[in-house]
């Protein structure tokens, strides 16, 4: 761990694969910028790979002041041990006060390894990050300007705010889409800090034999309308109605985690804290009770229609249009009304 260092920078892990910066890293830079401005410190991006220095410019445009470039042929592909080692060395050298990672497959593999090596804290899947004070009543002490790591917990019955006031850096992971994508400023400039990396092949316990990329089956983030089903849809067969309504509207079909776990639809369609966060013009929630983890991924939708046969379902609290009824009855009526207008 490093000691408490209020002058330390706010860092983002600038995840890149094959020379392309991941969206999540840019989204995180937007929030890091906000946190850095509030704290009056610089924002740093940690860029790791081989021959990737040219990507730094994009990171400046999205809000980084400093880009730490860690290049080595052995760092070309992500590996837990090598990436973790160079990040830990960098943290010890520069002592950032905050470091955030995307909660991607890579970030969720890397961040805990770093946290364990440094003996620092880590909060997974935050839905919000803010700066605030913490009063420790037993010590009679106020810890100023901490990173408030906010996430739903325990089946969504509670929202927990987690802090780390003594073993820094303060670290968190955030899912893609949770933080809005900042508007890039092509005139923004910054400083490249190139680090000398020496590494032996023997330090890599893993060999990547082959890799197969797969396009996501659906682009939920880019859809103007999302039609999502929950466990209340009842069966994979009934879920066809969700698809039909989505087709009628030219919408993307989404689902709750419960519906995915029940096998109604593929995991690519999952919306919520541990899935995709969406902000469409219209969100139609079918047979969705509205657990807070699901709401975390959709409550910013401009209009929400909720269809549920349980009038007390929490989803109705965030809905603009509430329809209490059976989906087998309501959806065909909706499709009919939509088609009648075309």
């Amino acid at each position, binding site marked *: 761990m490093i000691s408490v260092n209020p002058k330390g920078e706010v860092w983002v892990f600038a995840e890149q694969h094959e020379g392309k910066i991941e969206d999540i890293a840019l989204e995180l830079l937007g929030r890091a910028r906000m946190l850095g401005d509030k704290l009056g410190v610089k924002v740093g991006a940690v860029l790791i790979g081989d021959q990737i220095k040219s990507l730094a410019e994009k990171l400046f445009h999205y809000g980084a002041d400093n880009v730490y470039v860690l290049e080595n042929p052995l760092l070309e592909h992500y590996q837990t041990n090598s990436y973790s080692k160079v990040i830990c060395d960098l943290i010890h050298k520069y002592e950032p006060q905050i470091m955030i990672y995307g909660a991607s497959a890579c970030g969720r593999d890397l961040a805990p*390894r770093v946290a*364990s090596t440094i003996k620092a804290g880590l909060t997974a899947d935050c839905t919000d990050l803010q700066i605030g004070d913490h009063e420790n009543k037993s010590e009679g002490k106020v810890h100023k300007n901490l990173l408030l790591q906010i996430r739903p917990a*325990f089946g969504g019955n509670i929202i*927990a705010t*987690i802090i780390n006031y003594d073993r820094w850096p303060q670290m968190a992971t955030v899912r893609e889409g949770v933080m809005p994508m900042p508007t890039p400023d092509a005139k923004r400039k910054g400083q490249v800090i190139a680090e000398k990396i020496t590494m032996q092949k023997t330090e890599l316990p893993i*060999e990547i034999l082959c890799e197969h990329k797969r396009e996501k089956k659906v682009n939920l983030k880019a859809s103007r309308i999302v039609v999502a089903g929950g466990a209340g849809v009842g069966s994979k067969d009934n879920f066809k109605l969700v698809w039909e309504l989505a087709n009628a509207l030219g919408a993307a079909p989404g689902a709750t985690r419960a519906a995915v776990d029940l096998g109604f639809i593929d995991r690519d369609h999952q919306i919520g804290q541990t899935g995709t966060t969406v902000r469409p013009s219209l969100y139609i929630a079918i047979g969705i009770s509205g657990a807070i983890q699901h709401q975390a991924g959709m409550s910013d939708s401009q209009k929400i229609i909720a269809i549920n046969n349980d009038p007390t379902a929490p989803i109705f609290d965030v809905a603009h249009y509430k329809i209490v009824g059976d989906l087998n009855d309501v959806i065909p*009526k909706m499709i009919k*009304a939509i088609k009648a207008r075309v």
Partner: protein
Amino acid sequence: MAFNCVVTIKQVPDTKRITGQAMNDDGTVNRGALPAVFNPEDLNALELALDIKDKFGGKVTVITMGLPAASEVLRQAIYRGADEAILVTDRRAGASDTLATSYILSCAVKKLNYDIVLCGRQAIDGDTAQVGPQLAEKLGIPQVTYVEELLTVEDHHITARRNIGNGWQEVKCKLPLLMTVVDEANEPRVPGAKRLMKYKKAKTAIEIQTQLKKENPTASDAEVKQIADTKIKELEEKGLLIKQWDLDQINADLQWCGRDGSPTKVHRIQSVVLTARESKTVEATDNGITDMIRELITDKTIS
């Protein structure tokens, strides 16, 4: 060519079956009111370990850290085929975050001979997926996360296919290693009837003591201890004693355990209070629905 596997498992509240009563009035979680289950992906990790044993021989040891009641998931693992089960329980381990938990588990695992450590990808009560990688780091071994298929196991290395979110990757990794296993990896076996009959009386020392205290409310602590010791010895002779370790027995340094060992602290817990927004109730009739769709077309929500 036999392999010793250690599987870390967790008893978790069934978050899918949480009801209103699961929350106390002060907004804290009433754990007692929640049904406790075997963390689902830990069953996949156990299945993978049992599969390795079936194919190559060796031993499967399961470890859990938790309250005495967590002995139940150890029995569940034994019914399915685990050879040895260990409960790590200690009041001083309470309030551990993922870092402290992985430290404590690492102290326990270090006491065992292992080639492969297996964990479920994540536990359903926190979904952090942190303890696996952190445990690997504490043990100083490589990690292969999100394993969906173990392809080969050889003397000095394994190959596996791991899910990397937007695709998959095949990797080769040296032994010893730690794997975290996803639910797509396999279909966990159900408890074996013979093993269930044989091991349903398996217990940890603390379970025996608690039960005796309940049965003999007037007996002194010394008396209870005496009867318990006899009973414990009996079970041990029958091979029905589930091992139980406290923090001293695993040589854990207390500064890294429990609340003190946890860098993350809770700043605030808020019960979820949903504030209703301005909304319209739409009748589930043709007229009601047609009016709603017309409104959405007029304001250009639907184009």
